[in-house]
């Protein structure tokens, strides 16, 4: 899916009206099948940007075009149908307790399913193989019939990503997919995500705290700070100077060493939950 943002300003509805908007007149355009990582310090507006692209947040100013169409010009039912082509995976996996992993994964199919099909799917899941294959990409196939509240945080996060795989959306928006994963799992998850997007010819946008992961797996890197694009470059052109500049006031957040950057970090925060 093609994405074009022109002069988009946005703010979370609960934010104070006087507060500075989380996105400030932002321009960004993505072609179909492109894979982009968004990096930047906490509070840069990364999550807000994803929510605007997911039609979860209406821009206050400016225009969002998805496949050259303005989704906000659609009436509510049409917009809701259109949302079926977008998939936003929030940072905290939205899984209700007591639900089984298979149900949580197959919930990704709901937009394309009728009500009766989705009810009979609760009674007896019909696409067990599909869910299993999706979980296998994240090394979690053995948890297929477990309950989500009995999984660890990292396992829950990967269940959320498996849902993204079955959803077969055209625009995949992933918020901090690696925040609860160890380095090896994070690498595997990153590879699976990019592979899935390639296979499904979907556009992939991920916000990442692990700069190293972003540079290793994504072709295009967008540096975001205070709601503005600081740089938008191919990964090969992202230099250490640019990264130090991007994280200037937040050097402790630049986890993992970027190529050539020598930063003495007091400690590496494993999970940075404080994100807009």
């Amino acid at each position, binding site marked *: 899916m093609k994405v074009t943002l022109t002069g988009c300003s946005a703010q979370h*509805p609960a934010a104070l009206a006087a507060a500075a908007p989380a996105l400030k007149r932002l321009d960004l355009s993505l072609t179909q099948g492109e894979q982009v990582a968004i990096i930047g310090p906490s509070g840069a507006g990364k999550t807000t940007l994803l929510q605007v692209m997911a*039609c979860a947040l*209406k821009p206050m100013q400016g225009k969002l075009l998805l496949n050259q169409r303005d989704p906000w010009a659609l009436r509510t039912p049409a917009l809701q*149908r259109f949302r079926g082509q977008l*998939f936003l995976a*929030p940072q905290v996996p939205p899984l*209700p307790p007591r639900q089984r992993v298979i149900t949580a994964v197959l*919930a990704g199919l709901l937009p394309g399913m009728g009500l009766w099909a989705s*009810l009979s799917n609760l009674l007896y899941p019909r696409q067990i193989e599909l869910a299993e294959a999706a979980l296998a990409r994240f090394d979690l196939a053995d948890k297929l019939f477990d309950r989500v509240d009995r999984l660890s945080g990292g396992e829950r996060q990967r269940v959320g990503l498996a849902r993204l795989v079955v*959803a077969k959306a055209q625009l995949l928006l992933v918020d901090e997919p690696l925040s609860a994963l160890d380095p090896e799992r994070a690498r595997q998850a990153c590879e699976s995500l990019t592979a899935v997007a390639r296979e499904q010819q979907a556009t992939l946008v991920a916000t990442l705290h692990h700069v190293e992961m972003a540079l290793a797996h994504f072709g295009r890197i967008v540096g975001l700070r205070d709601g503005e694009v600081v740089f938008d470059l191919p990964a090969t052109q992202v230099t250490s100077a640019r990264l130090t500049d991007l994280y200037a006031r937040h050097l402790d957040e630049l986890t993992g060493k970027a190529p050539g950057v020598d930063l003495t970090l007091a400690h590496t925060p494993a999970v940075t939950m404080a994100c807009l």
Partner: protein
Amino acid sequence: MHVNTAPRRDPAWTGRVFALLATLVVVWPMLVLTEFKPWTLFSPESLPPTLHFLGDFFPPKLEPDFLRLVLFETWRTVAMATAGMTLALFLAIPMALLASRTLSISALTGRMALAPAVFRQGVRWLLMLLRSVPELIWALIFVRVVGLGPTSGVLAIALTYAGMLGKVYAEILESGDALPTQALLRNGAGRLQAFFYGQLPQSSSELTSYTVYRWECAIRSSAVLGFVGAGGLGQQMDASMKMFNGSEVATMLLMFMGLVWLADQVSRLLREALA
């Protein structure tokens, strides 16, 4: 020289005395208004008849014919409560879904749009109207419409309980974690799909336990409805009370305790199964 500056009196004491006096000032007029005179219980003209009536409770009447009658009426009471509850559920579940704010699509992107907000508030008012009329009044109305018998009891329970169940269901659904439901709606799922895949798994245990508790309440209120001629155990109890037949009343009260105990067990089993 050490000077003890700590106060000798508990500083909270004045506040407590004041709160106690204030409570008395508030409660006393209410006691006067309700003619609360517990000593009349022990006056010589009321105590012997009361004790005599209570003395009649023992032994409970256990003749086979009477037991058969009580069992049949008990079954009728349970049936009345269950039928009333079922009808109430048919009304309450759709209204709870309509009233639940977490299933709003327009609220996903900020404030709920005006029309859905007004509609949801309307459903809430309808629920309030249904439950603000006591089931006894509904029963008296329906006794006029459909005549004496269990039907009016069933309809009375259905209407009042639909109001109560709908309100509490909507509140249980809203008190759960909204994120799973929102995520499904944001990814394009329908409202009912989001309910079944996002809200129901986390709230099912609470919903069940509340429903069984209400079923127990419905059994009790269907007994009360019997007093206004809606059939069942209550009507029998009314007759026995008017005849001052303590042993019959005792048998029926024991039956009631059994029913309440049974409802408790059912609720426990269901909650364990859904935990």
